[in-house]
């Protein structure tokens, strides 16, 4: 196409001032699901299909497109023991043939209908995204339905995808950022499903069978763990019928393994994983407040001030702007269903990793002890409320945001109350929550590279905590 360079040949052609990947992490991890468009401009309808499936709809008839986003509770924490990577495997198999259509036929049909369908897995959910032009809606929906209800999981397709997944894992094993993140989860959640690598390992992916995929599909693709949001050129009646058509024949109930609540191990640790790279990458983090904790929103604002707010954040100021130690340094709060964490990352030449982490610890400690200033808090609130609308300027973004809200158990009215909640946070709140949230003594650090003067320090007393103790 004629817009931005794309493809593998052009990887290094355009260089941005701020790491796009990091920015994405920051944006997508704003699981506040902050509805950004003024509520009055967006009429969110709650509907129930004739078959009883609930969904939210924003009608937008000015664009002849429909964006449908849906989620099944489950995700990769539902992978069977010893088979880490099943959920991820499924996400790559959903367009590899369904019903009577073999892989190639299915994919050509998708292209002919200009239909877009993709799946993604997180720790707690399996996400589906479907987009169609209004003109092709009926035919595209039939194709979607086929895939949701009758994926083929043909053996030759399984072997093909397996090779790709394994090749990806082999690459990931040499990517310091990915190794650091994986190491961090293994360290923080030892013994819990969250500790497992989401895409599995070469070993586990090699062992996944067709039956594993079929079994996962049967357990997870059900009606009672399904959330649906549609945005675009469709009426409530039409959407109700569409949803029944696509999902109505799925089992009524999902069959989920229980996943215990968990907190990252306490006590702090530092693990160094050697890799021959000129720049070390560190992932660091600790437990945070769950999504429904009354302090969550305040914690979110405190994180914004500390490391979440790009060039406005303290860590960026101290590590990059003042000292030129890193290109990218950030933190975010990620409230998963069974835990909540504040995680960050920094990448710097091997000689500077120890110094960079010292600065980060110091800034955390300072924030815990003194809290932010009134000016910091005002600036953060101003950004978070003012940038509200930016997460809502495309059909697809609206659908994602609303789906997040539904999953977290909020109603559409969250739209109207969200900014008020942020406005209501006082400096005293922020100071109290900063102290509650930021405990550098509990910081779990994983460094990948050859960081000068650093070695692993893992206290023997480290223990996994399997019940929520945080008040």
């Amino acid at each position, binding site marked *: *196409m*004629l*817009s*931005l*360079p*794309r*493809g*593998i*040949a*052009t*990887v*290094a*052609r355009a*260089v*941005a001032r*701020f790491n796009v990947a990091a920015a994405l992490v920051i944006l997508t991890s704003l699981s506040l699901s902050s509805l950004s468009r003024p509520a009055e401009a967006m009429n969110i309808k709650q509907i129930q299909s004739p078959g009883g499936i609930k969904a939210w709809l924003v009608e937008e008839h000015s*664009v*002849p*497109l429909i964006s449908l986003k849906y989620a099944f509770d489950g995700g990769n924490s539902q992978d069977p023991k010893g088979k880490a990577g099943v959920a991820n495997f499924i996400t790559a198999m959903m*367009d590899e043939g369904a019903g009577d259509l073999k*892989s*190639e036929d299915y994919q*050509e049909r998708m*292209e*002919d209908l*200009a239909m877009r369908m993709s799946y993604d897995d997180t720790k707690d959910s399996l996400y589906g995204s479907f987009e169609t*032009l209004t*003109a092709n809606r009926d035919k595209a929906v039939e194709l979607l339905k086929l895939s949701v209800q009758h994926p083929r999981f043909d053996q*030759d397709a399984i072997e093909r995808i397996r*090779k790709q997944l394994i*090749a990806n894992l082999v*690459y990931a094993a*040499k990517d310091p950022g990915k190794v650091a993140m994986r190491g961090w989860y293994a360290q923080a959640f030892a013994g819990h499903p969250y500790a497992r690598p989401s895409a599995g390992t070469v070993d586990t992916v090699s062992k996944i069978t067709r039956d594993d995929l079929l079994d996962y599909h049967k357990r997870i693709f059900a009606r009672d763990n399904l959330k649906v949001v549609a945005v675009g050129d469709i009426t409530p009646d039409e959407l109700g019928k569409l949803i029944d058509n696509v999902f109505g024949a799925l089992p009524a109930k999902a069959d989920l393994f229980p996943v215990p609540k968990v907190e990252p191990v306490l006590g702090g640790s530092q693990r160094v994983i050697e890799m*021959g*790279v*000129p720049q070390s990458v560190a992932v660091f983090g600790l437990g945070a407040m769950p999504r429904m904790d009354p302090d969550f929103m305040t914690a979110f604002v405190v994180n914004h001030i500390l490391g979440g707010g*790009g*060039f*406005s954040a303290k860590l960026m100021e101290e590590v990059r*702007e003042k000292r*030129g*130690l*890193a*290109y*990218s340094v950030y933190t975010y709060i990620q409230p998963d269903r069974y835990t909540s964490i504040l995680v960050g990352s920094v*990448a710097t*030449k091997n*000689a*500077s990793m120890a*110094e960079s982490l010292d600065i980060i610890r110091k800034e955390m400690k300072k924030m815990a002890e003194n809290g932010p200033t009134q000016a910091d808090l005002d*600036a953060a609130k*101003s950004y978070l409320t*003012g940038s*509200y*609308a*930016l997460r*809502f*300027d*495309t059909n*697809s973004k609206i659908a994602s945001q609303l789906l997040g809200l539904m999953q977290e158990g909020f109603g559409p009215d969250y739209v109207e109350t969200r900014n008020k909640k942020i406005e209501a946070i006082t400096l005293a709140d922020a100071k109290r929550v900063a102290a509650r949230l930021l405990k550098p003594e509990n910081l779990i650090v994983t460094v990948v590279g050859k960081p000068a003067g650093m070695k692993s320090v893992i206290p023997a007393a480290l223990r996994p905590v399997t019940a929520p103790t945080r008040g």
Partner: protein
Amino acid sequence: MRLVTSTKFTFLTLLALSMLALTPDAYATDSATRASEFKLENGMDVVVIPDHRAPVVTHMVWYKVGSADEVRGKSGIAHFLEHLMFKSTDKIPVGEFSKIVSRLGGQDNAFTGHDTTAYFQRVAKDRLGKMMEMEADRMVHLRLDEKEVLTERDVILEERRSRIDNNPSALLDEQMNAALYLNDPYGTPVIGWYHEMAQLTRQDALNFYKHYYAPNNAILVVSGDVTPDEVKKLAEATYGKIPANPEVSSVRKRPSEPPPIAARRLELKDPRAGNFSMQRYYLAPSYVTAKPGEAEALDLLMKIAGSGTTSRIYKKLVVESKLASSAGGDYSGSGLDGGTISLYAVAADGVPLPKVEAAIDDVLADIVKNGVTDAELARAKRSYLADYVYESDNQATLARRYGWNMAVGRTVAEIEGWPDAISKVTADEVKKAAGKYLNMRASVTGYLVPDESGVAQADDLPSPSPNGVLR
């Protein structure tokens, strides 16, 4: 159809949509445009792309200068200056630019390519005037402090480590471009060569800035909830006050390539490679340099040959012969000096790379000899036209589409005529383009080979500038 009565949806998108329904050949040209275009008195081009669905705007300024305009020996200065543009002006204190944008609820960033440098903010529509005021201010009033410059230089060196030096695929890409271009500055990486970046000075940045940053060398692009009249008024009051720089030429002339006479081959052995993989780049014309219809034919050629799971290369190498775990190709036609065709493949376990390469060459030879089928061509066209419609959902994507193309000298009519031009390409033209441009003499082929015994070449990189290490 009812869509025609829509006031919000753009005519152009409708056009693309209706083309999806018709056979491509039945489509007739229409001169309808979506974007409004005008020029300020000082020569600054302005493009406005209205989208009134959400009360936000994307504001971009594109300079018609990129890294390929750098003086030899100063590689990286275009991108370095882009970073320094966030430092300070007479009115804005050091580091405050992004913080002000953030306090106004906006997001900002910038990026540099070989041909263009762009700055942007996404913000609520009532803040547009302030953004334009600030952007106009730094177009001519940048202030650079020596110490700030040196600190930022360390940041771009870290950025280089993150993007290139920590990633063997990026290193191979860099080596391959250097080999592909014998004379054109596209052979030099946008971010710069490490040893030259480490020597860049404040004066280098200022020289570049003073010459190239001027209204008559820039394009203003605003998309979102705004009208051309509103933008015009604001633009005249801000950018309009800046005098043109008569020194900067509107003709962009770079050293051009001699006729290519030898296929080039490279092998990068790296312990971090993970898998055995190969890439190939060919010199090709771009939308700017191609004869009418040729770039479109190349887009379609590479869609059919190498894009996604329905492409010939994927089907042959991944599905049928199973020589590769993934494989594909692409055409990038966005450059001012020329474009590239690219191919890639990751070898399946134990398959030697020459065998993979030969299999790709067979696929290409078949297309050169026998062309593509009408069904393939029709599918590829539908796919591009659908992409075009889907992209219209996103104002930021639209702003980039217009900005990038105009920065390399294409017109609004050419940009908006793209769906039409694509639909007119014949199978014979695709075959001709394949025969003409899949020319080994104009190519470079690179192998990335895991080197389990070797020493990471990363260790041999020059030591970082003293400014970073000691603090």
